[in-house]
C-alpha cells in the first residue's frame, strides 16, 4: 500500500511553504524553537496534503491547542482554520432512542453473564484500543472499525512524512558536502599549481 504521487507532491510543497512561513532558515531561532517549527510545519503539511479525514482534523485541533502554534496555523490555513476548529469531535453524539439502547444493552449483558470465556481477551484488546486511541490524533471519538481505518491512513501518511524528511535531510547534507568541496577546490588548484 502506497500513498499517491499527488499526495507526496502536495506534502512536499506544503512543507516548504511552512518552512518559509515559519522562517526556519533565519539564524535568530534557537535550536528547540527551530526543531518545533520544523515538526509543526511537517505535521500541518501532512494534514493539509491528506485532506479532510478524522485524524487530520484531530491533528490540527490538537496542534491549535497550543497558543504558539496558532499564528502559524492561521497563516497556513487561512480562512479554513476557523471552520476546522468547530467542535466536531467527541461532543457529537449519535442520537439514539433510549428504549432501544436499553433493550440491546440488556440482551448483551445477559449474554455476557452466560459466556465469560472471552473476558480476558476482550480486556487486553480494550486496553490496546485505548492506547491506540491516544496515539492516533483525534482518536478519542472514534469507534473500533473507524479507528482502524484512520490508523491505516495515519500510518501511511506518517511513513510518507518520514520518507520526505529523510530525503530532504540527505539532499541538504549532500549539497552541503558539495559546497564544502567546491570551496576547497580553488585551494587544491592552487596547491597543484604550486607543485
Amino acid at each position, binding site marked *: *500500500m502506497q500513498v499517491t*504521487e*499527488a499526495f*507526496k*507532491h502536495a506534502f*512536499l*510543497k*506544503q512543507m*516548504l*511553504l511552512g*518552512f*518559509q512561513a515559519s522562517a*526556519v*532558515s533565519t*539564524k535568530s531561532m534557537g*535550536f528547540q524553537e*527551530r*526543531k518545533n517549527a*520544523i*515538526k509543526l510545519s*511537517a505535521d500541518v503539511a501532512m494534514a*493539509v*496534503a491528506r*485532506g479532510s479525514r478524522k485524524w487530520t482534523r484531530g491533528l490540527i485541533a490538537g496542534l491549535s491547542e497550543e497558543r504558539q502554534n496558532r499564528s502559524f496555523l492561521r497563516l497556513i*490555513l*487561512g480562512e*479554513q482554520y476557523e*471552520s476546522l476548529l468547530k467542535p466536531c469531535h467527541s461532543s457529537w453524539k449519535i442520537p439514539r432512542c433510549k428504549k432501544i439502547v436499553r433493550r440491546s444493552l440488556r440482551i448483551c449483558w445477559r449474554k455476557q453473564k452466560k459466556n465469560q470465556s472471552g473476558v480476558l*481477551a476482550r480486556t487486553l*484488546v480494550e486496553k*490496546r484500543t485505548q492506547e*491506540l486511541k491516544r*496515539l*492516533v490524533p483525534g482518536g478519542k471519538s472514534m469507534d*473500533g*472499525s473507524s479507528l*482502524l*481505518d484512520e*490508523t*491505516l491512513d495515519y*500510518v*501511511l501518511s*506518517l*511513513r510518507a512524512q*518520514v*520518507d*520526505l*524528511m*529523510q*530525503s530532504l*535531510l*540527505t*539532499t*541538504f*547534507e*549532500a*549539497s*552541503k558536502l558539495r*559546497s564544502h568541496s*567546491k570551496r576547497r577546490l580553488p585551494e587544491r588548484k592552487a596547491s597543484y599549481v604550486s607543485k
Partner: protein
Amino acid sequence: MQCLRAPPDDLSILERQGACLLNWQQQDQEQPNYNPRGRGYCRQMQTSFQGLPSGCGGDKNANHGYVHGSIDCFSNGWPDLANIRYPVPGAATVEEASITNVSSNSSRKRKADKSPRSKENGGGGKGESSCKRIKEETGGGATSETGQPNKKEAASGDASKKNDKPPKTDCIHVRARRGQATDSHSLAERVRRERISQRMKYLQDLVPGCSKITGKAGMLDEIINYVQSLQRQVEFLSMKLATASPLMNINIDNIFGREVQINPSCKSGSTAMTGMSSELLDQSCLRFDSLQHPHPCAGLDMFMDSSDLVLRQNVNPPVAVPDASFGSSFDVNGCSVWSTNLQSLYGVDFQQGRGAALPF
C-alpha cells in the same frame, strides 16, 4: 409435501418450514407442474414471516414479502438479500461481492416468485439464511448472480454459495451462516467483527513483521509499536533538520517554488518521492557545482545563489516541459520572473500556494 431431510434441532419451526419449502422449490424446478402448490406455500410463508418476532419491522411489498431487521449497523460486506425487486439492480460494492464470494459458509435460500426464475446458478437453492436489513447507503455493485430476485427466509438446508444482486435500497443485508444465531444483535455483531477483521488484515499487510501474528491483541500491540516508532522517527528527523537548516541557510522555495524549471532528465514519473525530490535538489546542486563565478548579490544564501544562477542558465535554452506528475504548480514560464524582484515573487507564490493547497 415432504421434507427430504430432518433439519437440525437448533432451528426454529420457521426455519424448518423454510427448508421444506426450499426442497419444494427444487422440485419446482425439476417438475414444473408443482409450481402452483409451491407458490401457494410461498404465500403461506410470507404471511408466517410477517409474524417473525425477532424484531424485524415488516414492510411488505404487495408482490413480495420482505422482512427487515431494525438494527442499525454498518456493514459493507454482504449483498442485499431481503429487499430484492425484480428486475434487480446492483447494489453491493465490488468489495461486498468479493467478501460474499469468499465466505464459503454463506448459503442462501430461494423462494419461488410469481415471476419465474430466469436462471439458477449452481443447482438448487437449499441453504440456511437469515437476512437483516441494515441501514446504510450502498452503492451499486456486482455479485456473482444477476437478475435473481430473492426472498428472505430462515431455513436450514445444505449450504450453497449463491449471491444475489442486491436491490436498489439503501440498506445492507446480512446473511447468517449455517449453524449460527440469527437474531439481529448477533448478526450486527458479526458484521461489525467482519469489518474489524478485514481492517486488521489490511493493517497486517502494512505493518512490517506482522504476518505471523494472529491474535487481535498481538496485532494491536505491533500497530501501536509501529506508530510510536514512526512518530519518534519524525521527531528525530525534525531535530536533524533543525541542525542542518541554519548551516544551509535554506531558502528552499527558490528552488522548488511556483516557477521552477525542471530538467527533463530529472523525471520522476513512477519513481518514489524520495528519489524525485532528492533528484531535483541534486540537479540544482550539481548545477551549482558547475558555476565558477560567485553571484554578485551579496547577502543571499547559497541556495538562493544556486537557484538564481540555475534559472538564469536555463532561461535561454527552450523551456523544458514540466513533468506531468508535478502538477500545475510548477509553471515553466516563470523563469523570466526570477530576475525581477524576488520578494514580490515570494508574496505571489505564497498567495498562490495558500489558495491552491487546501482541500479540506
